[in-house]
């Protein structure tokens, strides 16, 4: 439960605590401590309660409700009271019972896994590079570049997705540009191509279908299909996602860069550090908290990709852009299986916790 935002927040909380203590020890802070505390106590609860009420109604209650629904069989159309207890059936359908449901869930996990592996490093890397360049003191037009890179982030994701449908159309910009750069005409039907990238690579060396051992299935999906790589359609969405989020993360890196005291970098320069050393030995280590934040937010965001899939492909072609988040929507609102939808949501929640936990371990060990 306290995987992600709590990490930086907890740290800042520690600092906040000492801050508060420092404040009360300051001039005038000590007098009539109990009186002040009493008044502050009332004010504290008074100030916090509106936010708490909203949190309870729209966060805590839904979480508990979802947990309950995930153990029930409910269409979402009839009143909730008409639902019947389902035990752990919803979870078993997804994890242990052979069938289409489990197969689709496996596909969505595979797709999203490739999505995460592609998008998180790409956006983090790009954002860092752009931030470092834009942060240079002697760069003309910094404000312009900063605004340009941030522009996609402030635009509605659905609107941006439709722009990209247009760009990736067979006669669209992407194909035109590629045709100009590469020999021959590129006529890719980006959003309707279900070939996995790894499958395509293997095809170039003559492997066209599953070799024997890869025909075995795991969660109703053959190993051959597990290793397919992201489909061309999914890759288009990955490009879109990277394009959209890079600006936001660049801004976070910029904030991190500006929090590095210039004295530290100047000291390193005086000590004779080259630019490369300066970046790898001083700047990057000092950016670690920001890096942690960016990767964490990236992981959370990419495991929940929905808007782009909804607007661009609806899970197709051949379910290669199906993601768990989209599956939640499809099962809950189109297939009237709210219980199953809630169960998927909780499994995704666990996956996110595991991923952020792993990432925390890795970053901590490096520290």
């Amino acid at each position, binding site marked *: 439960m306290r995987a992600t935002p709590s990490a930086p927040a907890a740290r800042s909380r520690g600092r906040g605590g000492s801050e508060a203590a420092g*404040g009360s020890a300051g001039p005038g802070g000590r007098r009539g401590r109990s009186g002040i505390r009493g008044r502050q106590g009332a004010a504290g609860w008074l100030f916090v309660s509106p936010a708490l009420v909203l949190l309870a109604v729209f966060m805590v209650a839904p979480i508990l409700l979802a947990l309950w629904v995930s153990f029930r069989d409910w269409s979402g159309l009839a009143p909730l009271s008409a639902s019947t207890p389902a035990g752990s059936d919803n979870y078993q359908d997804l994890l242990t019972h052979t069938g289409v449901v489990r197969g689709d869930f496996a596909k969505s996990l595979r797709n999203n896994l490739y999505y995460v592996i592609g998008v998180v490093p790409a956006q983090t890397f790009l954002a860092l590079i752009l931030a470092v360049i834009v942060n240079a003191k002697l760069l003309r037009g910094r404000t312009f570049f900063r605004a340009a890179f941030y522009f996609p982030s402030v635009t509605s994701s659905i609107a941006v997705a439709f722009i990209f449908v247009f760009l990736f159309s067979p006669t669209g910009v992407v194909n035109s540009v590629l045709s100009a750069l590469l020999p021959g005409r590129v006529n890719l039907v980006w959003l309707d191509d279900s070939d996995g990238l790894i499958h395509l690579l293997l095809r170039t060396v003559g492997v066209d279908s599953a070799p024997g051992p890869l025909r075995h299935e795991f969660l109703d999906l053959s190993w051959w299909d597990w290793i397919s790589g992201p489909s061309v359609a999914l890759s288009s969405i990955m490009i879109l996602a990277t394009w959209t989020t890079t600006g936001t993360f660049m801004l976070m890196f*910029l904030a991190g860069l*500006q929090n590095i005291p210039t004295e530290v970098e100047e000291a390193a320069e005086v000590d004779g550090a080259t630019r490369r050393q300066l970046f790898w030995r001083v700047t990057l280590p000092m950016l670690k908290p920001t890096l942690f934040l960016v990767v964490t937010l990236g992981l959370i965001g990419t495991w929940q990709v929905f808007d782009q899939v909804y607007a661009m492909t609806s899970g197709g072609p051949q379910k290669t852009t199906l993601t768990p988040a989209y599956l939640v929507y499809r099962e809950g609102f189109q297939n009237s299986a709210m219980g199953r939808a809630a169960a998927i949501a909780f499994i995704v929640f666990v996956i996110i916790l595991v991923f952020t936990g792993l990432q925390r371990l890795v970053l901590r060990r490096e520290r």
Partner: protein
Amino acid sequence: MLRRAVLTLFAVIFIYPFLLSLATSFKSRPEVAAHPVTPWPRSFDLRAWGDVLLHSDFPLWTFNSIVVTVAATLLRVFLDSLAGYALARLDWRGRGVVFAGVVSVLAVPPIVLTVPRFLVLKELTLLTRTPGSSCPWPSTPWASSHAPVLRRAPPRAGGGGPDRRRVHLRRVLAHRPAAGPARPC
């Protein structure tokens, strides 16, 4: 030089899609098919604009968005600066518990909440009424997630009231640790 080239390339990649959609909105249908790539219209056709502005409910949708945006923003700024101030600067019993609770609830990814939020709204019968369906409530609690950010505000020795309030507002409004780069420099 290389640096500038990289930046310019990326700026083009980031801006071109917007320019193109703006240009496309002024192109006639045959032109869109014939020249989908040019970022300027040749025909200057206003039909698409007329369709959207005059022959659709677009003005209503825009109005709805404005209502939601304004209400949600006002509520967020107000409630979150209250809560954030209490959590960051006031000394009261239960503060630690409340803070930990807020943070742990916010760590739950929103996807888990799509279905049940729909349920809560439905149970409260808010979905069928206008104030309900355009109500900013569901998104409001998210804003509280930024309350903890306030704790990072540097302590000011003689912090004057208005100054401090401005810092808080800015931090809450900034929504993400973006307060840094937003500074002119």
